[in-house]
């Protein structure tokens, strides 16, 4: 392996994998990469796993064993792919990644993700604006630990909310266990909390839109006036924000198109002459989405279309 | 020691004795095993109340009593399966409290339990040496020694069964023999056999008796439970009779007669076993022509309203299959069945046959006849769903009517129609199966071994019932392995041999020898 022989007889071989193909973004990414691979002339092996690393990792490793020029990780946390990282190191193949960890890690030639601190800042600020200050306000924070991005922004948001004098409802971050049932879990968490504490919420900060929509449903069904923020800018969330009738007032657009483009550019650069990026981590800025700008945002699940 | 429960309703001719003091006969010696004043109740039912049993080394002791008298329960108490509510168990003069079968086995007390025989999914050899008997060293099993030992034990019963077969692949008879071999393999000092011969035929019974006698001569104490009293008188030295969970009497076999035993068991004079025959009409209710099955070959016959047709033959001669085909439980490969004047479609299954008026009381009560966990009521309702429902809706009132009638007509002994059938004695379970099928008012009632494991009193009832049905115009076709029963209850007897009908005899002038020769396929005897 080593540098790109893209111009030689053999095509440039890329192994791409994502563990998140059941999420809309993951599904978009798969399609996007497949399309771009054609343009870039990659021989692409796309491996998808539903968060089942026991099945996915060996597939990736076996592909690595059969030789490749570059590895492209989409939305799969570095923690879950230790064995892939090892295999790639052994075969001396660089890994380029989209959203594969919240901080720099020398497992990757490049990992570009969105800025979690920025997301937390933007959403907490929006809550503060809408509520007219956070002092003494009751805010529920709903997170999901297995996802490192959500985990990180949730704890950043919690810290900021506390600092601004808000009370964290329930005393701590509420944890959703499975992404599959995120919406129903968040719905139950909020409904139950509001029954136990009528008018006990001024806002619900949620780490991602699917659960945020569940939380918003819980808020409106309970007749509470609380507002909800999410993250991802899914079309469903955007529609809810635009409608003005949903408690969901804000989400955050993560610039996946640009992020993916950046990473793909790095891969093609490597393909051309073997250059690797100068720094291996970048966290790019995000856009807060509210009723004002929602119409102009491309939904994260309609990326590319 | 308390006096055992009331013998007042019993025939005055009988004397009642307290067990421990009792064994009036022979010299009072040290007992190998004693049960003293044992009581046990289930769910409000007193299965045992003042039960006594005392067995000497070197005797074969019959334990007798009608269905539900408490024999099996007593056996389970003395072998540690059940903890008694009261009373004591004494082994070699020492009071013991077995915590389980294992403890009892270690103390040399081993039982072959009724209705529980083999583990179908493991090999014959393992079945023979199940549990503690399995030859092992340091937890490792020696398959070689296991086969050797299993072969020896089976040979003792003159059984040559391939040891590596799964026990479930054996015929029912062989399965029973395997479980007998297991009991014999334990070198028990007290060996208890609960109806070992219920599903055996003469050959195996002979082999078993030889072994039991030699064990007795070696000083083993043997308790033997059977409803076949002839056997008891042939084999046993002493007998204990129970009734309603209580000890009634213990005496030497030589000092009693079958009639006396029967009336002691039943608590009154049972009268004659077989009722008088009725009149058979000319009206053909069912006729069969050139029927072929897996085992059944070219069987043709017809039966009439009011007739009791007995079917005999050796084990495996195809009698059960014949009944199953007639009932639609199995498909014939060719041949026709005509019920009344209508030919039954070749692929007719049980529902259609029931509709046509043919009902089967199957051979294996517990696995084919009743849902053990379900109540009497539900079991009876089971076979009558079409008749107690309108437009797909079941009528509880109509179920109650048939259940009530069934329980009354057949005198099913239970404390409520809501009692699970699994808690009833064998005879009462059989009556539930009968009740369930009779409620369909069949024109042709097929009965496979209708009295297996059933006490004499109940047997007589069942024979009477069969006669009553026949008198009402029903045709009864009954398979039996007991020749006297075949002759006694039937109007006409067909004998099968290797799937074919090898002989047909008018029951009124049949004798056992002739039937037997037909059983062996010697059709030319006469």
């Amino acid at each position: 392996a080593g540098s790109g022989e893209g111009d030689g007889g053999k095509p440039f071989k890329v192994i791409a994998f994502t563990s998140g193909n059941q999420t809309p973004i993951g599904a978009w990414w798969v399609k996007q990469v497949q399309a771009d691979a054609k343009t870039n002339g990659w021989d692409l092996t796309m491996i998808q796993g539903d968060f089942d690393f026991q099945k996915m990792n060996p597939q990736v490793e076996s592909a690595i064993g059969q030789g490749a020029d570059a590895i492209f990780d989409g939305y799969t946390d570095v923690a879950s792919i230790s064995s892939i990282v090892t295999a790639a190191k052994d075969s001396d193949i660089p890994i380029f990644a989209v959203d594969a960890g919240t901080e720099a890690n020398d497992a990757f030639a490049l990992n570009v993700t969105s800025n979690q601190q920025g997301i937390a800042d933007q959403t907490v600020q929006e809550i503060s604006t809408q509520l007219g200050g956070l002092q003494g306000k009751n805010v529920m924070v709903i997170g999901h630990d297995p996802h490192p991005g959500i985990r990180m922004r949730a704890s950043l948001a919690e810290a900021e909310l506390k600092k601004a004098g808000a009370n964290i409802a329930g005393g701590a971050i509420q944890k959703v266990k499975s992404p599959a049932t995120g919406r129903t879990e968040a719905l139950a968490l909020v409904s139950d909390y509001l029954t136990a504490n009528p008018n006990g919420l001024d806002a619900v900060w949620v780490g991602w839109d699917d659960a945020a929509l569940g939380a918003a449903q819980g808020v409106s069904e309970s007749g509470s006036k609380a507002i909800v923020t999410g993250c991802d800018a899914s079309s469903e969330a955007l529609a809810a924000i635009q409608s003005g009738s949903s408690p969901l007032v804000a989400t955050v657009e993560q610039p996946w198109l640009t992020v993916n483009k950046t990473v793909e550019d790095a891969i093609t650069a490597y393909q051309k002459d073997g250059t690797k990026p100068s720094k291996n981590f970048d966290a790019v800025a995000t856009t807060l989405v509210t009723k004002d700008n929602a119409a102009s945002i491309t939904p994260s699940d309609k990326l590319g279309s | 020691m308390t006096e055992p429960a009331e013998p007042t309703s019993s025939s005055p001719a009988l004397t009642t004795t307290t067990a421990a003091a009792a064994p009036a006969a022979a010299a009072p010696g040290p007992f190998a095993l004693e049960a003293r004043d044992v009581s046990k109740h289930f769910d409000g039912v007193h299965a045992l109340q003042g039960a006594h049993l005392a067995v000497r080394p070197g005797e074969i002791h019959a334990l007798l009593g009608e269905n539900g008298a408490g024999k099996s329960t007593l056996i389970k108490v003395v072998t540690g399966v059940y903890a008694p509510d009261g009373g004591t168990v004494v082994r070699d003069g020492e009071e013991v409290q077995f915590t389980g079968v294992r403890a009892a086995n270690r103390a040399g007390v081993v039982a072959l339990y009724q209705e529980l025989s083999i583990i179908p999914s493991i090999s014959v050899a393992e079945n023979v040496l199940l549990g503690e008997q399995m030859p092992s060293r340091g937890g490792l099993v020696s398959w070689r020694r296991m086969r050797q030992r299993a072969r020896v034990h089976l040979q003792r019963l003159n059984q040559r069964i391939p040891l590596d077969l799964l026990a479930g692949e054996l015929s029912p008879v062989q399965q029973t023999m395997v479980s007998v071999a297991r009991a014999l393999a334990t070198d028990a000092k007290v060996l208890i056999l609960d109806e070992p011969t219920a599903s055996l035929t003469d050959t195996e019974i002979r082999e078993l008796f030889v072994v039991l006698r030699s064990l007795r001569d070696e000083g083993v104490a043997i308790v033997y439970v059977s409803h076949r009293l002839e056997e008891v008188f042939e084999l046993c030295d002493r007998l204990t009779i129970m009734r309603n969970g209580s000890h009634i009497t213990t005496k030497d076999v030589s000092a009693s007669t079958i009639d006396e035993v029967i009336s002691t068991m039943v608590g009154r004079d049972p009268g004659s076993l077989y009722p008088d025959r009725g009149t058979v009409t000319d009206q053909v209710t069912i006729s069969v022509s050139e029927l072929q099955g897996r085992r059944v070959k070219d069987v043709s016959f017809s039966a009439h309203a009011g007739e009791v047709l007995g079917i005999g033959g050796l084990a495996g001669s195809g009698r059960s299959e014949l009944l199953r085909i007639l009932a639609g439980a199995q498909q014939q490969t060719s041949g026709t069945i005509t019920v009344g004047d209508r030919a039954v479609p070749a692929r007719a299954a049980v529902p259609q046959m029931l509709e046509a008026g043919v009902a089967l009381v199957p051979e294996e009560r517990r696995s084919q006849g009743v849902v053990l966990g379900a109540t009497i009521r539900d079991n009876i309702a089971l076979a009558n769903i079409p008749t107690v429902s309108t437009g797909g809706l079941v009528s509880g009132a109509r179920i109650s009517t048939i259940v009530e009638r069934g329980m009354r007509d057949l005198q099913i002994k239970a404390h409520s129609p809501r009692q699970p059938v699994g808690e009833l004695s064998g005879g009462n379970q059989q009556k539930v199966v009968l009740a369930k099928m009779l409620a369909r008012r069949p024109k042709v009632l097929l009965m496979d071994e209708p009295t297996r494991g059933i006490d004499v009193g109940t047997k007589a009832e069942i024979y009477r019932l069969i006669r009553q049905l026949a008198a009402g115009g029903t045709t009864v076709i009954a398979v039996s392995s007991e020749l006297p029963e075949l002759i006694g209850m039937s109007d006409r007897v067909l004998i099968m041999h290797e799937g074919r009908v090898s002989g047909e005899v008018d029951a009124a002038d049949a004798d056992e020898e002739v039937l037997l020769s037909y059983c062996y396929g010697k059709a030319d005897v006469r």
Partner: protein
Amino acid sequence: MTATPTRNPGIEDTSAGVLAVPRRSLGQRALSGGTVLALVVLVLFFFAMRPDVFLTFTNVRNILYQVSILAIIAVAQTVVMVVGDFDLSVAATSSLAGSVAGALLTAGQSVTVAVVAAVAVGLAIGLVNGLLVAYLNLSAFVATLASMTSIVGAAYLVTEGTTLFNFPAGFTQLGQGRLFNIPMPVYLAVLIALVAWAVLRFTTTGRSWYAIGGNVEVARLSGISVRRSRLLAFTVAGLVAGIGGVLLAARLGSSSAVQGSDNLMFSVAAVFLGMTVIRSGAANLGGTVIGVAIIGVMSNGLNILGVNSYVQQVVTGIIIIAAVTLSSLKTRSR
């Protein structure tokens, strides 16, 4: 001779006992249900902890709303378990049905078309499961495990892996509308449970199911068409699961391939809890409802007390074990 007199069954028994389910005296019955006891204990406990909240109208409605769809899936599971089988595909079937409805709505089909098609998909899956089990004699466990796998794959294909949403109000009203301030799914769950209860209790089909669950061979020899009945049970389960899936999609206003996947385990747990309610240990609708209630009360109560969701999960398992143990102790001491 032998027969003891019995109560006259004709007089008091007209209320027709469910097959395989014995009847006990009122006193025994009240005591019997260790499982019922467990539910009562749970309710009392949470009430004692939060008397101001737990038994309020809002919260009870809340619990009912939360368990309504689980209850429907559990009804499907009950039917199959009455026949002595298992259906591991119920939750997947409901997800697929919801996904199909969602996809059709997204494609601009009418609510009626979407709902009918989704329910038909549920029914078809049930039919296939039934054919595999009843006619090809596959073990229900393997057959439905395998079909579950395929169904989830199909749901991914239908949704293309995304979450479908933006359904017309006519559809979401099915899941979110209210009548007398009670959400529609609650009525539907009650309705479906009642119908299923009546079917199990009063119809020949229900009786046949119980008979088969008791002992297949006995049922067959008693003239019950075992194959057809089992086929029917699976088909009904598929149909009911399909309805559950449509309601879940309507309730959430969205559908995805994995939506409601936790309903499998919870439905099985509910039926098993319910089996401990009655002596025969057969699956039964009343018991299932109690099982669902235990699960619902537990999760709502723990949320109300603000218990960490990981701890909740640990506690959930322990409570299930405690409930079942309690009831088995009761049974043994009888």
